[in-house]
């Protein structure tokens, strides 16, 4: 009897243990520790970019997953020397798609010669896994400036230095790695001169340097003893950057032929560091970075915003303007400009002012003007009535507000409608479906503000976003597309 009870108890324990084991097996377990839980593709779009020297080159970084949610990216996008971006503050060149990855952790330019933009971004920490983006998503827009011609340039993603993180539904964690599979690079062709760019950051002028990479911003490190207005041959310049390097007799003779002033001052051996200054190789050779004289110019102007009724523009108050002046191969931007005066002229609200173009001594220019929710307009002549479809401009300036002519641009008013960008809320220079959708959504609820207030979607400045603003956007879109195509 005792034996029988024992057998039954042992049997019950065994069955219980097996049932328990079965239950445990049924529960989810991450059996893939250390493995990738899903794959991803990285692309740079468009796959072919054709621009001219002086143009902005815009590339989009895309990530594609098979449904896995993206939580972070750490990648390097490499580019050739036909392109530059600000190395001191590359964040200006990167626009993150905040709907996908909200926080920019690091942006820096790394590498020498063939440079790479390192971009590290993560999703907002308060974002729920279900709200993370998946599928094919644009992560960022990267902007370069084309400074050299070239047909074989590539924007490449460095696979070895790329990590994409995602939400692993099995592990329940957002730090799981996605395997980087296919990578789609982009080609670019930079053609002949359009605008001679001026990659100038005044603070970089005359800074001491030891190697090319220490200059940045398109500046090159030249020896301090080189006083000429012609560039030194590249192979000799590179030799001066070698520790203890010396120049052969024939190289010294070559230099003297190019620049007789250096005779007697060429050092026999070149020290490694602090041997030179950063200078702009694209300007006529001067001891500083600037191409032009340091005199100021003055632009006296009149502008108007399109479709603003002068008698009902209670909210057109201190709309800041951005002016870009271009002349003699040099451009300079002046932002946050508030015109000094405004007046209603024949129902039109006309703004006027006198803008001192600091450190811009060029006297024959083209002027580009942009408003806070407006496209950039190009003005090349006085009383312009439509697009100025020519290179350069015929705006003549002097260095004094009293003698500089007043330029009236009100007959070709600044078009409204660029209220947001595709990947962020910042303007992107286009009027497109995203701008329409934004204004439409605000007009449906009649977004309103008190007199003197500001609404991004209020294109006519009447303090309310309504169907008239939607119509203004349509008018601007039709006009601009008609000009472009």
């Amino acid at each position, binding site marked *: 009897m005792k034996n029988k009870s024992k057998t039954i108890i042992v049997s019950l324990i065994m069955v219980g243990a097996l049932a328990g084991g*079965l239950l445990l097996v049924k529960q989810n377990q991450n059996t893939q520790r250390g493995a990738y839980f899903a794959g991803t593709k990285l692309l740079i779009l468009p796959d072919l970019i054709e621009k001219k020297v002086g143009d902005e080159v815009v590339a989009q970084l895309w990530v594609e997953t*098979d449904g896995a949610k993206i939580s972070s990216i750490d990648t390097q996008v490499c580019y050739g020397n036909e392109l530059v971006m600000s190395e001191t503050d590359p964040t200006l060149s990167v626009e993150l798609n905040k709907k996908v990855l909200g926080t920019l952790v690091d942006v820096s330019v790394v590498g020498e010669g063939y440079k790479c933009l390192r971009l590290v971004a993560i999703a907002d920490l308060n974002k729920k896994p279900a709200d993370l983006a998946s599928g094919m*998503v644009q992560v960022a827009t990267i902007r370069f400036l084309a400074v050299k011609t070239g047909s074989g340039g590539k924007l490449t993603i460095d696979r070895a230095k790329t990590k994409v993180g995602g939400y692993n539904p099995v592990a329940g964690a957002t730090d799981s790695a996605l395997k980087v599979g296919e990578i789609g690079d982009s080609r670019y062709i930079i053609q002949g001169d359009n605008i001679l760019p001026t990659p100038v950051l005044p603070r970089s002028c005359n800074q001491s340097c030891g190697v090319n990479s220490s200059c940045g911003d398109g500046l090159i490190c030249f020896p301090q003893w080189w006083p000429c207005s012609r560039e030194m041959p590249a192979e000799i310049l590179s030799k001066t950057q070698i520790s203890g390097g010396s120049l052969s007799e024939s190289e010294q003779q070559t230099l003297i032929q190019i620049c007789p002033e250096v005779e007697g001052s060429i050092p026999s051996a070149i020290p490694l560091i602090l041997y030179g200054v950063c200078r702009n190789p694209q300007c006529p050779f001067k001891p500083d970075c600037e191409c032009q004289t340091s005199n100021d110019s003055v632009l006296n102007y009149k502008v108007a915003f399109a479709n603003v009724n002068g008698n009902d523009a209670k909210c057109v108050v201190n709309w800041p303007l951005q002016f870009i002046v271009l002349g003699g191969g040099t451009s300079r931007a002046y932002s946050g400009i508030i015109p000094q005066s405004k007046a209603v002229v024949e129902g039109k609200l006309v703004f006027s002012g006198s803008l001192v173009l600091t450190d811009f001594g060029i006297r024959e220019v083209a002027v580009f003007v942009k408003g806070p929710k407006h496209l950039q307009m190009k003005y090349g002549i006085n009383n312009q009535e439509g697009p100025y479809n020519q290179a350069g401009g015929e705006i003549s300036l002097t260095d004094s507000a009293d003698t500089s002519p007043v330029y009236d641009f009100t007959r070709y008013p600044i078009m409204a409608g660029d209220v947001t960008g595709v990947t962020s809320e910042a303007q992107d220079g286009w009027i*497109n*479906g*995203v701008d329409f959708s934004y204004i439409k959504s605000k007009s449906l609820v009649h977004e309103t503000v008190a007199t003197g207030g500001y609404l991004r979607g209020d294109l006519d400045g009447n303090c309310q976003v309504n169907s008239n603003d939607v119509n203004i956007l*349509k008018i601007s879109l039709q006009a601009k*597309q*008609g000009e472009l*195509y």
Partner: protein
Amino acid sequence: MNYIKNMKGNRILKTLIPLVAVVIIIESVLLLSRPAIKIGPQTLKEGSNTPVSLNWEANGETVMGKSEEVVLKMETEKEVAIDAVDLYIKYDPALVTISDLSFDGDFVAPSFSKISQEKGLVVVNYLVSAPKGFNLKVGGGIDLARFKVNYISEGEVSFGIGEGTLVVENGSASVLPFNSDGLTVKVVSE
């Protein structure tokens, strides 16, 4: 007698228990080899982030000098409300001329449309004024652009979706991802 009965019960138990144990073990092994949650591709959330497809309808081969119709359709695998579509179709103007651009009566009329032979672009901008946007249904695609192509040169002619093309979702004002392969038409001489 009782002793004999007890002996028989014990034998049955001793056979049954290992049998049950073996069955459970086999089941456990089978379950282990089949993960309970699928790892890998997952379906996308409806609405935001729903991808649409831009698909071509055209003959893959044609004869030089012939004029044929090409259609670009927008389709979806999940119902989605559209606020706007900016369409840029790029082509090589040295190989073809394009004419007779027309649109789908079921969709809104475009706010802007143009064939730019000089730039090799067909540009169409659709803006949907209806508060809830245009409801693009599964299996109910629309013709975004329909045009006639006159093939003026032999070889392969490509059409692609150009930079600036956007499909904007109603409500969120966010850009929807889209899939599209280019169209290549082989042109032969008669």
